[in-house]
């Protein structure tokens, strides 16, 4: 069996017999302190020569590099998605609605901490203890207009903001 067979692809490498006559075998490779095949399909393969080991190491490094690239790409996609949704949440309601029409809702609510982001984005500037902004608004039946300050000094006022949908 020549060197070409020893440096064969993964599947065949697994089934190669140990060939001490070619300088191979796991004990020898271990003795050189060079086995770092943590995440390759070659774990458990019989190392049959120094060249074989070097080949496996090169494969391992390459696999690791692609794995890390994949992780970095995933993190970048997540951060971008997070930022885009957070930015959308900071927009006025009508623009937020238009943006969200183009967002994958299950991903927004499933993959992001969306409720916490929402509470942060819609916190608003008013705090307890600050003066309530004045307003005068019509009742829904046009019957009268109500001014918030008309209750001052008399009764607390409960305001329930909402809409039909």
């Amino acid at each position, binding site marked *: 069996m020549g060197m070409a067979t020893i440096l064969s692809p993964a599947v065949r490498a697994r089934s190669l017999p140990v060939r001490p006559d070619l300088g191979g075998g796991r004990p020898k490779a271990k003795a050189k302190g060079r086995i770092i095949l943590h995440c390759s399909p070659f774990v458990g393969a019989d190392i049959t020569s120094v060249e074989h080991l070097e080949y496996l190491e090169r494969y391992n490094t390459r696999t690791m590099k692609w794995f890390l690239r994949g992780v970095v790409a995933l993190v970048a996609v997540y951060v971008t998605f997070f930022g885009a949704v957070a930015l959308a949440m900071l927009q*006025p*309601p*009508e623009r*937020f*609605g*238009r943006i*969200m*029409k183009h967002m994958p809702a299950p991903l927004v609510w499933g993959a992001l901490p969306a*409720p916490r982001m*929402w*509470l942060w*984005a*819609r*916190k*608003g*500037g*008013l*705090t*307890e*203890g*600050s*003066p*309530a*902004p004045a*307003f005068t*608004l*019509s*009742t*829904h*039946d*046009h019957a009268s207009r*109500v001014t*918030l*300050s008309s*209750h*001052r*000094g*008399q*009764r*607390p*006022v*409960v*305001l*329930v*903001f*909402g*809409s*039909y*949908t």
Partner: protein
Amino acid sequence: MPALNTLYRDYRDRAAFYMVYIQEAHPIDAGQVGDNLKDDVLVSSTMTKDERMNVAGMWVRNLGIELPALVDEPHNGVERAYTAWPDRLYVVDREGRISYKSAAGPFGFKPSEVQATLERLLPAE
């Protein structure tokens, strides 16, 4: 809504209550949700004062709202001043200061917290 009606009935003699109709949360032209399709609550964004009055009327009737309802202007001035969208609760004390502000709805919409505030503000009977 039943929780708010109950709260209103229990405290209406000692506190003023207003529903304030603001711009739609899930109109058919932006942010439509499945629950509204199921319940046949299909409403476009309300742009004019008349549209708002119409939809606010439907809102009050169809949800059985007993509280008096006000309608925000089309430029959303009150909604913006209170960061009220899509829904939110406030209690304003007798001096006109904000005594309670809920977290943003729908997650922060908790009528029980309004009741706790009213208990604190109103003298014991």
